[in-house]
């Protein structure tokens, strides 16, 4: 590393940024593509219901279905805006 680089703020390498992004994305893709067909539609409808009461973005709602042994857990995560 050059002398200048030494004083500069420690920056993450682009490869490690790529790896982190991929880990999140691939996990998300796997749930979406292996999950039941109704999941995306249900997510849209849940979003519509919540929107009746609060103003939120698409990204503020996260629906996931996880397999835990023999039971499936439906998880709904809504980030409400600051008042």
């Amino acid at each position, binding site marked *: 590393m050059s002398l200048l680089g030494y004083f500069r703020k420690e920056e993450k390498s*682009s490869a490690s940024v790529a790896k982190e992004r*991929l880990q999140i994305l*691939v996990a998300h893709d796997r749930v979406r593509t*292996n999950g039941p067909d109704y999941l995306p539609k249900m997510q849209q409808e849940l979003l519509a219901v919540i929107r009746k009461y609060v103003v939120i973005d698409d990204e503020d709602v996260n629906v996931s279905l996880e397999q835990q042994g023999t039971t499936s857990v439906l998880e709904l995560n809504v980030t409400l805006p600051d008042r």
Partner: protein
Amino acid sequence: MAKIIVVTSGKGGVGKTTTSAAFSAALAMKGHKTVVIDFDVGLRNLDLVMGCERRVVYDFVNVVQGEASLKQALIKDKRLDNLFVLPASQTRDKDALKPEGVEKVLNDLRAEFDYIVCDSPAGIEHGAQMALYFAEEAVIVTNPEVSSVRDSDRIIGILQSKSRLAEEGKSVKEHLLLTRYNPERVERGEMLSVQDVEDILAIPLLGVIPESEAVLKASNQGVPVVHDDASDAGQAYDDAVSRYLGEDRPHRFLEKQKKGFLKRVFGG
């Protein structure tokens, strides 16, 4: 009975056809009777990379549809006696391949060959699904680059759910082949490392092919790159195929090449 291997990736341009050509040529060089089939109907290119483009008379679709016999359509490699190419059609639309027809051709080939290598088209549509449906093993060609890794993960998901073995409750044996690897850039933190890609895709590593000038040179000349046994890529493919056949070979070309004295003095 032949083993059916699909070379696939999801993403285009990562080296499926280069790999299919090198892999099948290496299998043949090691004494196995091999046929390589181009599943990219409409965009055939395997014939060009194998250097037999001027000898194509009949193609895979002709055979599937009963317009030509296998014997008429198979092209014998000019360098290796036990290597044959079944080219794709250039004119038909991509839905010309029906599962029943493909199955019949593969069954006929199975009796004659040791290995059937299926060169998949890019994407996850009909052609790609036909190429992988009957496979027993899969070589997943991946570049150390975000979109390629993501698409490889998708194609692994499809192998695990839509292949015939998956439908029968069994599984396709998967092999990761990392291509266009540049150890210098990995060392500088500019490129995903072998370990990074293995962590994400979680399938066994078959080999790493370094980014190499030999690959373009080989396709320019229509000679599979394994024939260039002085080149890094040629040697890496040879290693990968030996490993595939059960030989224990250490991975090479993963570290930055140390410059020798002469190179340091004269550059290079």
